[in-house]
C-alpha cells in the first residue's frame, strides 16, 4: 500500500516529462504514454480502495532548523481514497476521450504533459496531510488550469481567459497562504488531521479558527467558482472541452469542497459553516438562474457546475459532510459525462459551441443523445439517477438545519436545474436543424474513443445510484442516519418526476413560444442580467481597473519612476567608482599580487596580536 504513495508522487510528473519529450519525437506516443500512466494511476487507486484497511499516515519534515519546522506528510483515509478514485478515474476517461477530440491538434505532447501534471497536482492535494503539501498541490492545479485554459494561446480570448482564471484563483489563494501563516503562528500546527482533533477538543482559539477557516474558504471560493469569484469559470470554457470536463467540471473545482470537507471538524468548531452555507446558497441560485439563458453549450454546463458545487457546499455548510461529499461524487461523474458529451457534440459539429445553431442531432448521434440524456436526468435529479439522492439529501438537510434563506435558494437552484439542462438537451437534439450549413457536415462519432467512455460514464451514473448509502457510509466511516423527513422525500420524488415531465413537454412543444415571450422588454432586461452572470465580472473589472490599477498602481508607478529609478540609476556610477578603485589591485602582474599577499599576511598577524593581547 505504501508503494502506491510512491507511484502517486512520481508517476504523473514522470509521465508528463516522458509524454512531452517522447511526444516531440513521435506524436502518437504522447497519447499512449498518457493513457498508460492514467491507467496505472487509476489501477493504483482501485488497488488502494480494495486493500484499504487503516489510513496511510506518513510523517515527513521538510525543513527543520532553528525554531522553524515545516511538515510535509502524507495521509490517505476514506475521503482521500474517494477523491483519488474520482481524480484518476475521470482523468483516465478524459485522456482516453481526448484521443479523438484532440486528434487534429498539432500540440498533443504539450496537451498530455499538462493534463498529467494536473492529475499529479490533484493527487498531491488529496493525499497531503499538511496544509503545506495541500497548498502545493492546490497551486500545481492552478498552474495546470492556467496552462490548459490558454492551451490555444494564439487566440486572444483563450490567453485572456487563462490569465483571468489565474488572477481570480490566485486572489483566493493568497488568503490560504495567509491562513497557513496564521495557523503556524497561533496554533503551531499545520497538520489537518491534528487541527480537526484540536478543534474537537476545543484547544484552538475561536477567533483564530474562525479567521483561518474563512480565509481558507475564500481560497475555496476562488477554486470552486463560488460567488463572487466565479466569472473565471465561465471564461475558462475557452480551453479544450476535454479540459473543461476534467478540470472545470469534474475534479479541480471540487478541491474547494474537498479542503472544507477535509477540515470539516475545524469548520464545525467555528461558525464558519454558517457563512459557507449562505454564500453557497446564493451562488447556487446565481448559477442556476444564469444557466437558464446561456447560448453556448459549455457555458450552460459551466453555470450548472457552479450551481451544483454550491449545492455540495450547502450540504457541508448545513453540517452534513455525508451528503455534501455524496453530491460531489455524483456531480463529478455526471458532469464529466455531460461535458464529454458536449465535447462529442462539438467535435462532430466541427467546433460549433452555440446550442442555438444546432438541433435535431438525435438522428445523427443517437448514442450521444442517450448518454447525455442519462447525465441530464441525473443532474436534473430525477429518480432513480444518482443525482437525485444526493441533491435530495442536501435539500432535506438544508430545510432541516439551514434556515429560510439557504433552504429556499437551494431548493430553487435544485428545481431550476431540471429546466436548464432540459433546455440544453432539447435545443441540441430535438426539433429541426437550425443551421443547415453546420448540420450538413455533422459526422458520426467514433466508437472506441467517443462512445465507449461516454457509455461507461453513463452506466456508472446509473449504477452508482444503487450504492448511495454505501458511499455515504464509506466517506464518513460509520453508518449515517438519513434525514427523517419521509413525507418530504416522497414529495420530492413525485415532484421531481412530474416537474421533469412538464418541463420536457414545455420545451419540446413550445421552444418558439418561449422565444416570443422573451421578446418582451422587461423579460429582456432580466435576460441580459442573467446572461451576463449578474454583471459580477463587470463589477470586479470596474473595481480593479479604477481602484487598483488607476489608483494604487499608478501612484506606486509614479514613485517608482521618479524616485526609485533615480536611486537605482545613481547606483551604477557609484558601483563603477568602487569597481575602478578595486581594479587598481588587479594589474595582472604576479609581482603585484604577491606584494598584496604579503600585506595581507602582515594584517592578519598584527591584527591577531592586537585583538588578543590588546597591545
Amino acid at each position, binding site marked *: 500500500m505504501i508503494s502506491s504513495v510512491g507511484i502517486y508522487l512520481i508517476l504523473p510528473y514522470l509521465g508528463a516529462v516522458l509524454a512531452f519529450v517522447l511526444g516531440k519525437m513521435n506524436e502518437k506516443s504522447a497519447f499512449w504514454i498518457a493513457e498508460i500512466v492514467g491507467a496505472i494511476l487509476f489501477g493504483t487507486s482501485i488497488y488502494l480502495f480494495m486493500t484499504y484497511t487503516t489510513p496511510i499516515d506518513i510523517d515527513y519534515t521538510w525543513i*527543520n*532548523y*532553528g525554531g522553524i519546522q515545516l511538515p510535509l506528510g502524507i495521509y490517505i483515509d476514506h475521503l482521500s481514497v474517494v477523491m483519488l478514485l474520482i481524480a484518476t478515474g475521470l482523468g483516465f476517461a478524459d485522456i482516453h476521450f481526448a484521443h479523438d477530440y484532440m486528434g487534429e491538434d498539432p500540440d498533443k505532447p504539450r496537451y498530455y504533459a499538462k493534463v498529467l501534471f494536473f492529475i499529479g497536482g490533484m493527487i498531491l492535494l488529496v493525499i497531503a496531510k499538511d496544509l503545506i503539501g495541500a497548498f502545493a498541490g492546490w497551486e500545481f492545479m492552478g498552474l495546470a488550469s492556467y496552462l490548459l485554459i490558454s492551451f490555444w494561446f494564439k487566440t486572444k480570448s483563450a490567453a485572456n481567459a487563462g490569465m483571468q482564471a489565474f488572477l481570480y484563483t490566485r486572489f483566493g489563494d493568497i488568503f490560504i497562504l495567509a491562513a497557513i501563516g496564521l495557523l503556524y503562528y497561533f496554533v503551531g500546527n499545520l497538520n489537518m488531521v491534528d487541527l480537526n482533533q484540536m478543534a474537537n477538543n476545543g484547544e484552538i482559539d475561536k477567533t483564530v479558527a474562525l479567521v483561518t477557516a474563512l480565509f481558507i474558504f475564500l481560497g475555496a471560493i476562488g477554486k470552486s467558482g463560488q460567488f463572487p469569484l466565479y466569472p473565471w469559470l465561465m471564461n475558462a470554457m475557452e480551453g479544450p472541452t476535454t479540459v473543461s470536463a476534467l478540470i472545470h467540471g469534474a475534479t479541480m473545482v471540487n478541491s474547494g469542497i474537498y479542503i472544507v470537507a477535509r477540515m470539516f471538524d475545524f469548520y464545525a468548531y467555528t461558525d464558519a459553516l454558517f457563512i459557507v452555507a449562505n454564500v453557497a446558497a446564493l451562488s447556487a441560485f446565481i448559477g442556476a438562474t444564469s444557466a437558464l439563458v446561456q447560448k453556448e453549450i459549455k457555458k450552460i454546463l459551466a453555470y450548472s457546475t457552479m450551481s451544483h458545487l454550491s449545492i455540495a457546499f450547502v450540504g457541508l455548510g448545513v453540517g452534513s459532510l455525508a451528503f455534501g461529499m455524496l453530491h460531489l461524487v455524483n456531480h463529478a461523474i455526471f458532469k464529466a459525462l455531460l461535458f464529454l458529451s458536449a465535447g462529442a457534440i462539438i467535435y462532430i459539429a466541427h467546433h460549433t459551441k452555440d446550442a442555438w445553431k444546432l438541433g435535431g442531432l438525435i438522428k445523427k448521434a443517437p448514442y450521444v443523445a442517450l448518454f447525455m440524456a442519462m447525465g441530464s436526468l441525473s443532474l436534473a435529479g430525477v429518480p432513480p439517477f444518482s443525482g437525485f439522492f444526493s441533491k435530495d439529501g442536501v435539500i432535506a438537510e438544508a430545510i432541516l438545519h439551514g434556515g429560510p434563506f439557504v433552504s429556499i435558494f437551494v431548493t430553487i437552484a435544485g428545481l431550476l436545474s431540471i429546466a436548464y439542462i432540459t433546455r440544453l438537451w432539447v435545443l441540441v437534439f430535438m426539433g429541426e436543424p437550425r443551421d443547415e450549413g453546420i448540420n450538413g457536415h455533422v459526422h458520426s462519432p467514433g466508437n472506441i474513443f467517443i462512445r465507449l467512455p461516454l457509455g461507461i460514464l453513463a452506466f456508472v451514473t446509473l449504477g452508482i445510484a444503487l450504492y448511495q448509502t454505501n458511499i455515504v457510509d464509506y466517506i464518513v466511516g460509520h453508518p449515517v442516519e438519513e434525514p427523517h423527513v419521509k413525507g418530504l422525500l416522497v414529495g420530492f420524488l413525485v415532484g421531481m418526476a412530474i416537474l421533469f415531465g412538464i418541463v420536457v413537454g414545455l420545451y419540446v412543444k413550445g421552444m418558439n413560444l418561449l422565444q416570443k415571450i422573451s421578446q418582451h422588454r422587461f423579460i429582456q432586461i432580466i435576460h441580459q442580467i442573467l446572461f451576463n452572470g449578474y454583471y459580477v465580472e463587470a463589477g470586479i473589472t470596474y473595481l480593479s481597473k479604477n481602484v487598483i490599477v488607476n489608483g494604487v498602481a499608478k501612484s506606486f508607478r509614479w514613485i517608482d519612476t521618479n524616485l526609485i529609478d533615480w536611486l537605482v540609476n545613481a547606483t551604477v556610477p557609484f*558601483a*563603477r567608482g568602487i569597481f575602478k578603485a*578595486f581594479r587598481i589591485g588587479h594589474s595582472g602582474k604576479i609581482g603585484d599580487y604577491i606584494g598584496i*599577499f604579503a600585506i595581507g599576511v602582515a594584517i592578519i598577524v598584527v*591584527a591577531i596580536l592586537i585583538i588578543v*593581547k590588546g597591545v
Partner: protein
Amino acid sequence: MGSLIILIGAGLLVPLFFKGHMIIAKYIAAAAFAAAAFNVYMGNGIDLPYFVLTPDTQLMEIVVLIVLAATMMTFSGFERPLIPQTLFVGAASLAILETNNFLMYIVLFEVIAIISYVLAANIRSKLNAEGAIKMFIAGATASGFILLGFAMFSMITPTFNYSEISVHGNFALVAFGIMLAGIFYKMTVVPMHGWAADTYAQVNHAAAAILSATIKVVIAVATFKAFYLFMAAYPTTTVWLFGFFAIITMTLGNFMALFQKKIAKILSFSSIAHAGYMLLPFAAVASMYSYTGLIYLGIAYVFMQTSVFLILNDLRREAHIKTLEDIKGLYKKSPLHALFFTIQLLSLAGIPLLAGFISKAVAFYAGVDAGLWPLILIAALNSALSLGYYLWVIKHIYFDEPVAGTHAKITMTPGSLVGQLILLAGTIYFGIFAAPVFSTTLGL
C-alpha cells in the same frame, strides 16, 4: 582504503587508454568515482590511523565524488590530461576530509596544491601558460607561508591531534596567523586572491571548474575542522578576523564581477565572492549551525560552480564563446546550455528552491544565531548586489539577439548532458531537501 585504491588505481590506469580510446578512459574514471562514492556510502572510510569517517564527512565526500563523476562525463579530448589528475584530486579530497591530524592536514594540503598545478598546466595557449604560472608562483609563496607557520606551530604543540593541539601563547597565535594566510590563498580570500581572478579565467575551464569548486570547498571544510580548536579558543579574534576578511572578500568579488566583459572573469570573481560567504560560518563559530552552514554552502557551491564553468567550457570549445557579446541570444543557439546555465546562475544568486538559496539562508542564520547581524546584513546586501551580474548574463542569453556571423547552433554532447543533469539534480535536490545536511552535520 578501498576508495583510495580505486581512485589512485584508476588514475594510474587511464593513461593507457589515451591513444585513441579517450572515451574508455573517461568512463573508467567516472565508474571509479561512482564506485568510490558507493564505497563511502557503505561507510567504508580510509581506515588508517589519523583518519576517521564521520557522517558529515561521508556526506561531503559523496557529494564531491558525484560532482567529479559528473565533471568527468563532460570531458572531451581536450581535457584528456585532466582525467588522472581529477582522480587524484578525488583521492586527496577524501583523505583531507577524513583526517584528524594537523600534520596530515598540512601534507595533504600540499598534495592538493601540487595536483592543482598539474591540473592548471594543461597548456594549449599563451593564456593558459600565463594562468598556470601565476597560480604556481602565488602557490609557492603560500606554501612558504604555510610551512613557516607550521614549523613555528610544531615547535610548541605536544601533539598534532585536532582535539589536543596547543593553541595558546603568542607563538601559536603568530603561527596560526601565518598558516591562515597561506590557506586563504587557496580559498581565494582577498587580498590573497589576485592569482585566482586571472587563473580561473585563463586556464582550461574544466580545470577551473575543479580548482574553483571542488578544491576550494574541500579546503574550506577541512580547514574548519583543523582550526576549530583555535577558533573556539579565541572567539573575539575569530569574529573580527574572519568577519573582516569575509566582508572585503565578498564585497570586492561582487563589485569586480559587476563590470566584467568576459564571462570567465565574472565567474572567477563570483567564485571569490563565494569564498567570502564561506568565511561567514568561520566567523559564526559560536553558533551550533556554523558547521552546517559551511557544509551546506560547500555542497551547494560545488554543484553550481562546477556546472557553470563546465558549460562555459562547452561553449568555448564548440563556439569560441568568451565574452558577454558572444553569449547574446544563446537560448536560440542552444536551449539546453542556456537552460542549465540560467538555473545554475539563479542558484548562485540565491533564488529560492535552489541549493544556493537554502545554503545561504542556513549560513546567514548561523551568523544571526551567533549575534553577528551587522555582518549578515552586509552579506545579504552583497547577495542582492550579486544579482546585478548574474541577471546581466541571463539577460544577454535570453533577451538579446545573437550577433551576426557567430555559430547558429551549438550541440550538447550526450556526456555533457548527463553531467549537467547530475549537477542540476544536485542543485535542485539540496534546494528542496535540507534534512540530509542537517541530520549529519549538527553537533560537531
